């Protein structure tokens, strides 16, 4: 049986859809971490059968907004003294700034530096977003 010890102080990102853990791991640049991090793939989930979990044995700051872009079911648990002291519930954000980039090569964001990359939510179920500048619709993750 695989055993990952519980953490004293840090963050547990739970209920990540199976298969997205590694993507999230890289998005958070955890491969560069000099503290203990664990990526658990295909853990048992009552709701979905399988899920991924990331455990971070450190308090790091990151923008939880973009986790909502991946899946609003993801939970972020803040751990202190080995216990969950705060559980952050995510939402699909209405507007995201400088988190994702437009993929349309004709979009002005491909040439104009120093402008914010702004997207507006189109469909919360599909998690599709519209670029502020060229209107291209993308599903970020």
């Amino acid at each position: 049986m695989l055993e990952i010890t519980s953490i004293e102080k840090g963050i547990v990102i739970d209920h990540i859809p199976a298969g997205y853990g590694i993507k999230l791991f890289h998005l958070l640049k955890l491969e560069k971490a000099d503290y203990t991090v664990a990526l658990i793939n295909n853990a048992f989930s009552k709701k979905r059968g399988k899920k991924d979990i990331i455990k971070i044995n450190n308090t790091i700051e990151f923008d939880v907004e973009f986790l909502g872009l991946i899946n609003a079911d993801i939970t972020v648990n803040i751990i202190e003294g080995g216990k969950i002291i705060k559980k952050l519930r995510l939402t699909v954000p209405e507007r995201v700034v400088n988190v994702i980039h437009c993929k349309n090569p004709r979009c002005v964001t491909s040439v104009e530096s120093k402008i914010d990359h702004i997207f507006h939510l189109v469909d919360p179920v599909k998690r599709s977003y519209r670029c502020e500048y060229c209107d291209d619709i993308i599903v970020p993750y």
Partner: protein
Amino acid sequence: MLKGKSLIDPSDFSKEEFREIFDLAHEIAKDPLKYKKSCEDKILATLFFEPSTRTRFSFEAAMLRLGGQVIGFSEPNSSSVAKGESIADTIRTVENYADLAVMRHPKEGAPRVAVQSVKFPVINAGDGGHLHPTQTLTDILTIEMLKGSVENKVYGFCGDLKFGRTVHSLIKFLSNYDGVRFILVSPEELTIPEYVREEITRKNVPFIEVDKLKEHLKEMDFLYMTRVQRERFFNEEDYIRLKDSFILDAEKMKHAGPETYILHPLPRVNEISIDVDDDPRAQYFNQARNGMYVRMALILKLLGIK
């Protein structure tokens, strides 16, 4: 109140604001000379980062007929852009010299960047394959002159609906009006982009997508033709196979209704055969004149003069 506003996307103005512009444009069309001194101390900057003939001429003629002055460039190589200046910096500089600016740019969303950087009015004169809202003003003025109002009509669009910025703008505008229905005629490769489809679906505008023009002509009040461009196709075979499906000629016009008017943003290449030009239902050359009047109205409104 339109004073100080910018027009980048047809959704930037309310129906009432557009009404103000069209009402003034109809007045100007009746007596253009009445407005010849309206912009005597005003300067319009025309920033054309991409070649344009008719849109630039139309704006310049509009400003000159209002008694104003025009500064600007007609291709980026003759401007500081060639030295690598950003859009934001270019427009900030121009704001010091002019009272409003017109911008055409090959990159989609470039005029939106300009608006974010300045306080004076900016008008989108076409950004890549995205939008061209002042062509829409031209189209609507023509539609109103021919049929009184835009509501309760069937609009056909034919040709390149994917990259046709005039098509996107006009569909976005019309989708706010009651009783409008669209017949979208294009090859599968050139159907409307996702954001246009999303908008008309969200607004519950009835539309069908077909790949044959002839059988639907009769139901249309207006047919908006655009050019199918060779460079949009991945191979020559597809282009040759499809191009003739989207050419309007006198033979096809026999299948159109007695009041099916033909519009085209121009320039036309071969998508409307010249044997259609003398048909009274062909209205594309009248659109150009209306374009100047409606741009005069837009300038007067954005400057708060009328």
